[in-house]
């Protein structure tokens, strides 16, 4: 690991060149220049980061107090403006520092000043018996063994070596900042060219209609999506472990795709992705069978409403009052059945319902042998709660809860900016890693002749921590003073 990463140096920015021109022109240039200066400043960057953090904190608290869990505020013009300022800051800083980073990478100064090297945070002085070139060769060998790229030059009467490694580190912050701009770009593309929405499909049906959040109303997909079956998978304790929709895609009249999706495995077709989002009860079918074997199938639509923040369910019946009531007369014995309540997640006992999700539906069954003559409450007898796939009997009659028809709720989304965003993600992680875990190391060696000895002074002139050069000095010592 390295200490003090050498980010691009100065706190004072770039060279300010005054252009000759008329007084009016230079005033405009002055203002533009000031703006450019502002946006190329590191102080601006830090202020913007902290302002963004502070504003976001305020928004989360503000949202919570209002019970608003939408992301609307974050998409408001002024928040986006703040993000845009950061984007401009990143872009300007990157442009400004590009030339310098390029120069440092490809054409650094090769000069070495022995006095400066001796005063460097990390340095070593050695003596060598022999020629300057021989000394240079030894030093170069040592540094090459330490994986440095070495350049030898003649500087006045001395031989000078410039050894460098880890130049990629120079570009770490660059890559990091660029990646954020790439993410922003991806987000903008997604926002402009993408959309998100919602659709419901009932088991056994197919549709091409979905509700588009961007335009605020229904739209057509251009193809049809059908639901063969919706299923909840349970574990041994009868807790849901998965919500699965068996979807088919029909394009131009024939099936072109099929997939059983669940929450973590969506379906994509023509750039549009369908995510398992919710589900519900569409209808139920019960059967009443008489003592003589005659039976009647009773389908009912399910209606959901909201009460105290909970979803409540009821059966929409076919009689004049909309109640789920049916009178049958099988084998001479009349019976009227009323399906009074439907519990979505029936567990029995005093609690009745474990949740308001339709996990284990059950209907509450009442019977009345003298309907419609006796309609009062006392004429009805409750015979129990009837869960799916179960049946109840009453005086020779069997009432069975045959099946339910469910619908699946799918999130629909198209995001053409996604590949760009993902690219930005990868670059960001890479950039952060390079910035902190690669070190740009420069060692300059100055070889001066005094008599038949060489004074070899090596100093580290990059900002890497001095302790990282210990092994390099050891190697130099081994080679040069051998």
């Amino acid at each position, binding site marked *: 690991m390295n200490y003090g990463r050498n980010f691009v140096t100065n706190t004072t920015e770039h060279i300010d060149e005054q252009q000759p021109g008329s007084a009016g022109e230079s005033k405009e240039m002055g203002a533009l220049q000031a703006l450019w200066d502002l946006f190329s400043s*590191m102080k601006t960057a830090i202020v913007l980061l902290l302002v963004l953090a502070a504003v976001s904190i305020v928004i989360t608290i503000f949202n919570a107090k209002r019970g608003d869990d939408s992301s609307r505020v974050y998409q408001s013009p002024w928040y986006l403006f703040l993000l845009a300022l950061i984007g401009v800051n990143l872009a300007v800083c990157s442009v400004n520092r590009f030339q310098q980073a390029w120069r440092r990478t490809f054409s650094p100064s090769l000069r070495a000043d022995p006095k400066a090297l001796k005063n460097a945070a990390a340095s070593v002085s050695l003596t060598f018996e022999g020629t300057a070139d021989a000394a240079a060769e030894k030093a170069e060998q040592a540094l090459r063994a330490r994986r440095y790229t070495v350049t030898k030059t003649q500087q006045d009467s001395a031989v000078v070596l410039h050894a460098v490694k880890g130049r990629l580190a120079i570009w770490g912050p660059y890559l990091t900042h660029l990646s954020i701009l790439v993410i922003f770009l991806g987000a903008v593309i997604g926002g402009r060219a993408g959309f998100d929405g919602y659709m419901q499909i009932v088991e056994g049906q197919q549709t091409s209609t979905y509700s588009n959040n961007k335009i605020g109303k229904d739209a057509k997909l251009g193809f049809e999506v059908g639901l063969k079956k919706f299923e909840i998978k349970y574990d041994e304790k009868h*807790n849901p472990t*998965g919500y699965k929709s068996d979807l088919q895609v029909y394009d131009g009249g024939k099936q072109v795709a099929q997939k059983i999706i669940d929450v973590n495995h969506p379906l994509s077709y023509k750039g549009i992705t369908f995510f398992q989002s919710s589900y519900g009860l569409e209808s139920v079918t019960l059967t009443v069978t008489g003592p003589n074997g005659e039976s009647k199938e009773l389908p009912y639509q399910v209606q959901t409403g909201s009460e105290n923040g909970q*979803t409540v369910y009821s059966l929409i019946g076919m009689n004049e009052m909309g109640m789920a009531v049916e009178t049958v007369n099988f084998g001479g014995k009349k019976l009227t059945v009323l399906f009074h309540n439907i519990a979505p997640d029936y567990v029995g006992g005093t609690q009745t319902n474990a949740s308001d*999700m339709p996990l284990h539906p059950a209907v509450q069954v009442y019977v009345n042998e003298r309907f419609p003559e006796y309609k009062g409450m006392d004429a009805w007898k409750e015979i129990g709660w009837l869960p799916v796939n179960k049946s109840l009997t009453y005086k020779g009659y069997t009432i069975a809860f045959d099946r339910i028809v469910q619908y699946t709720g799918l999130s629909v989304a198209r995001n053409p900016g996604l590949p760009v965003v993902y690219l930005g993600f990868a670059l960001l992680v890479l950039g952060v890693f390079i910035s902190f875990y690669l070190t740009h190391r420069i060692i300059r060696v100055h070889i001066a002749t005094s008599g038949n000895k060489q004074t070899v002074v090596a100093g580290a002139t990059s900002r890497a921590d001095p302790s990282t050069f210990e092994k390099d000095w050891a190697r130099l010592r081994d080679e040069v003073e051998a």
Partner: protein
Amino acid sequence: MTIKLGADAFTIAVAIYALAAILYVAYLINKQKAMADAGRGVLIAGFLVHSAALVIRGLALGRVPFLNMYEYMISCVWGAVVVYLGVEIFTKNRSFGAFAVPLITAGAFMAARLPYQLVDIMPALRSAWRVPHIASAVLAYGAFAVAFVMAIMYLLAVKSEGEKGSFWASRLPSAKFTDQAIYRVIAFGFLMQTVLILVGAIWAQMSWGRYWGWDPKETWSLITWLIYAAYLHTRTVMGWRGRNSVLMALFGFLAVIFTLFGVNFLGGLHAYSSVMK
């Protein structure tokens, strides 16, 4: 391999950590190297038992133990131990342990008191993405916690630097050294935090169809990231050192705490009262 065995193993680990804490504090007080060596040995022993406890629980459950509060806490404590051991190895300094290990022990003790029984996994959480997401969280928050402890030590060191014959001055690592160490730990934490946020975003995209929804948990993890990013910039580009830098690190940790715990409070203010009974 039962859950109870895993829980018992973790309880043993807590006891071992407590012993290690005592040894580290003793080292700080009497400066005997033998104490530090013993402390590290005991800490590593505790860490091995702790790791075994996690593995046992994982095997008993058939999945990586990253789900309920108990699992999350024991994993975060594990992460803090990993980071602390890294600090000890890279800085070659044991004094940080006198503060870090007792706090790790306290965290482990609190974790051990949480209910460890089986928890049912919501279908949405049944994804392979959960593992790298929580793993990076464990390392990020472990690192930020260790940096926080070191920040306290820095303030103590600075306060006692002038005083002659001060108890702290001769025992704590120098303020400058601690300051640099905090920077390295936060740099690691920041890399982990970046991975955490991005993996979370990819998972959210696969699961919910949007990689960023500005929900409180997401937003607060970003806020934490921004504060530490500012810290790193003040250090590397503006050359901030010492008190101001450390205060920023402390400030960042407040954001971490809120991200982990405060967000649930925010959630309570939501219209989430429709949660099932």
